């Protein structure tokens, strides 16, 4: 170790150490104590250079004959010194190289005698060298080699991590009771009893999750996110905390990573405009360096360009929101409502009946439709305060059609939004339930089947909701893409902010002060209302507003441009 740090003073300690471990693992140097573990230890233990004869550089084949001779020699030196695996090797070699055995024994004896000719320290050194050579090339079972590479690479040479026992044991212990085959499956394992209650209860978007499922969400953050129901719950919680953009960003990154290649650059652009640009509607808080890297990468977007930012946000959510989520009333409510089904006790006759009643499960097409309906339903229950988008990957468009949550837009119109202040009632966070419904309808009608995140009235937000909703609706009616909508939306916010005072009287139809929950129900009802039946505030008044806003929208579309585009933006078509 000291040799390495002396040799390469410019590299970091960590690099020196990994370089050293590689050298040891390959056999260029060997440790004097603890010769079986070829690792560099960060203490003052001694290492020695291996003689070039034993170097692996030229990749001379490591012959079994030599190994047999070596083992025989060791046995000569001291009978019974061979370890178990060496013994096994020896026996195996004896079997397979039987014809040479006389030679091997003789050669071993001769080498031993020749070694005796040397001075004792040299003999010891040579013995160590040879031993180290064979530890590299015929390692004892269970050795971890620093030459492993790839995802399975074990970086940390500490014993527990290396053997991996603690990790595996922990995993097994946690998941043991949740495994349907290892332990009881409530109500009953469908594979065993042909009763599909278990599967019905554990559908992806079920209203009431089972207790076991909810418990799994507490195991790890990844577990929570990978369960769609859990993710929805988490999303709900984040809405309340006004930090839904984190999850939205994460989901959009996932969509980018796993989505179609054709729409990748569009999506990347959308994400940038929605989350990353200065003044973006749903600006996420990532550190400067990551932002720099991401923006640089976005010049030539590819699937993984947002990986760094995504990881950052993921860790942020994991360390911060996840803990709070577990203590939140949302979660506690879910836990309380979680069902714990009774165990089935089928008699044999009943089992036979079940077997007879077996039917093929739903076709994937139907399942997908159901999923989409679920998502639409979920979209309807989105919290007013935060317009977050939903997770259905849009086949040809970016997902982030969320109309957003504007941070203190009451600043002067020209100022980009710098920070997200959760307390600010977004002037845009508008959409009336009805409008949101209509949007959704329109969107759905466009065949995307996606629930558009409804912008919903903030609990305290009085401002220009209906107006914004209307303008949105208008835009949609005109068939603008959500992108233009956004682009034009942001400046609209300004305009809205500017004229907010005027607008107060025009928001008749909902109780803006209503608590979210009630509004949720309220919205749900409204989903079914066809667009025509919407209760709109006086439309005519908004007409000119709309026009003005639209024009300003045209101007404003230039406000958020991606740095890699030219200064004449193509209005958000990406």
């Amino acid at each position: 170790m000291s040799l390495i740090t002396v040799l390469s003073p410019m590299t970091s300690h960590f690099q020196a150490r990994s370089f050293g471990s590689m050298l040891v693992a390959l056999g260029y140097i060997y440790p004097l104590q603890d010769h079986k573990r070829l690792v560099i230890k960060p203490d003052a233990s001694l290492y020695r250079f291996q003689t070039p004869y034993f170097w692996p550089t030229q990749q001379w084949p490591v012959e079994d004959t030599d190994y047999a001779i070596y083992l025989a020699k060791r046995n000569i030196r001291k009978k019974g010194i061979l370890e178990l695996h060496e013994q096994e090797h020896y026996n195996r070699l004896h079997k397979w190289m039987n014809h040479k055995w006389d030679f091997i024994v003789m050669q071993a004896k001769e080498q031993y005698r020749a070694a005796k000719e040397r001075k004792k320290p040299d003999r010891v050194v040579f013995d160590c060298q040879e031993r180290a050579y064979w530890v590299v090339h015929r390692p004892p079972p269970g050795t971890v080699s620093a030459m492993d590479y790839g995802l399975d690479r074990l970086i940390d040479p500490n014993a527990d991590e290396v053997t991996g026992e603690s990790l595996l044991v922990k995993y097994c212990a946690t998941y043991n009771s949740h495994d349907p085959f290892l332990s009881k499956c409530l109500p009953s394992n469908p594979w065993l009893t042909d009763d599909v209650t278990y599967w019905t209860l554990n559908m992806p978007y079920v209203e009431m999750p089972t207790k076991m499922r909810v418990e799994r969400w507490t195991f790890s953050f990844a577990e929570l996110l990978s369960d769609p129901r859990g993710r929805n719950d988490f999303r709900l919680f984040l809405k309340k905390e006004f930090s839904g953009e984190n999850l939205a960003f994460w989901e959009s990154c996932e969509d980018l990573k796993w989505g179609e290649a054709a729409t990748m650059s569009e999506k990347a652009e959308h994400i940038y405009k929605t989350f990353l640009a200065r003044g973006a509607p749903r600006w996420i808080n990532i550190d400067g360096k990551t932002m720099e890297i991401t923006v640089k990468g976005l010049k030539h977007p590819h699937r993984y360009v947002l990986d760094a930012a995504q990881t950052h946000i993921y860790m942020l959510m994991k360390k911060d929101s996840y803990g709070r989520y577990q203590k939140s009333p949302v979660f506690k409510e879910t836990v309380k409502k979680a069902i714990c089904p009774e165990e089935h006790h089928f008699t044999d006759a009943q089992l036979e009946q079940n077997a007879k009643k077996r039917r093929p499960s739903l076709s994937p097409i139907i399942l997908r439709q159901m999923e989409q309906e679920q998502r639409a339903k979920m979209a309807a229950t989105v919290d007013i305060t935060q317009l977050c988008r939903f997770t259905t990957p849009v086949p040809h468009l970016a997902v982030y059609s969320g109309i957003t949550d504007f941070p203190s837009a009451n600043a002067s119109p020209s100022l980009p939004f710098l920070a997200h202040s959760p307390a600010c009632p977004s002037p845009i966070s508008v959409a009336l339930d009805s409008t949101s419904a209509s949007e959704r309808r329109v969107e759905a009608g466009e065949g995307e089947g996606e629930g558009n995140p409804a912008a919903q009235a903030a609990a305290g937000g009085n401002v220009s909701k209906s107006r914004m909703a209307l303008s949105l609706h208008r835009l949609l009616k005109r068939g603008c893409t959500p992108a233009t909508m956004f682009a034009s939306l942001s400046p609209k916010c300004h305009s809205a902010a500017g004229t907010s005072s005027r607008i107060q009287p025009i928001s008749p139809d909902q109780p803006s002060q209503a608590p979210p929950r009630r509004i949720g129900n309220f919205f749900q009802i409204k989903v079914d209302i066809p667009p025509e039946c919407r209760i709109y505030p006086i439309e005519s008044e908004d007409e000119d507003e709309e026009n003005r806003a639209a024009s300003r929208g045209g101007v404003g579309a230039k406000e958020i441009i991606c740095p890699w585009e030219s200064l004449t933006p193509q209005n958000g078509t990406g």
Partner: protein
Amino acid sequence: MPLVNNKVGDDCTVGTDKALVDGKAQVDSLIKVVACYRHLASYVGGCTDSLQLRDELRQTREKALTLAVSICNHLTSHLRNKSLPEGQRKEMELLWVAFSSSLELLHVDMCKVFNISDIFSLANTDALVQTGLQGGGSEVAARALSLPDLNLAPNPTLSAGLESQERSTMEQEISQMDHMIDDMEMKVNVMRWMVEPHGPQYAEVLSSSDSASLALLSVDEEQPGHQPPCQRSHIHVLLLLFAVVLVAATLSVCIIFFT
């Protein structure tokens, strides 16, 4: 080796018995030389590498080759002899297997030495690897050449010409060995799976039948006397290493502070 008790006194079988004994002796000595060569080869490139070592290697190699050639001729001629009785043939085949295995080992060692001496030229002694060895391989070479003491010519001076000459000689010898091995395989068909060894699975602890080993045993007894100087040098090395470690530790601490 079972001697055929042939009261009839068949000249042929007696002859082959003698040949067998001869052959065995030769193969044994070849094995000894190959073992010593391997020990010497492990010195190459290390801090004890020197012209002397290279010289010893060369001499050992030459001896091995002469032995090999003679055994080759000997065994080939006998094994091609169709009238060889079965028992004799089996013994011959055993010798043959031993001979070919030693040749292979020797060939590998020669290639390795050739390669390493290429990389670690003696012209640049700083580049030699510090393997922690102290002594040279003189005693081993002496054993190989069966000389009680290796009387060395005064150290030959290193010159470019000498090295390249060495190299070309080595190359020739290696190719010669290649040819020999190929020839052997061509001329004599020994079915290796039919060969059965006599010896035990485990090598026995050193027997005192070897005269050389007697000398060694006595040397061993003298060892305790040598220990103090060895231990002292050992301690010196340890102290040096600790000092190096300390220096390295302070250096790395400085690096950490200043980066």
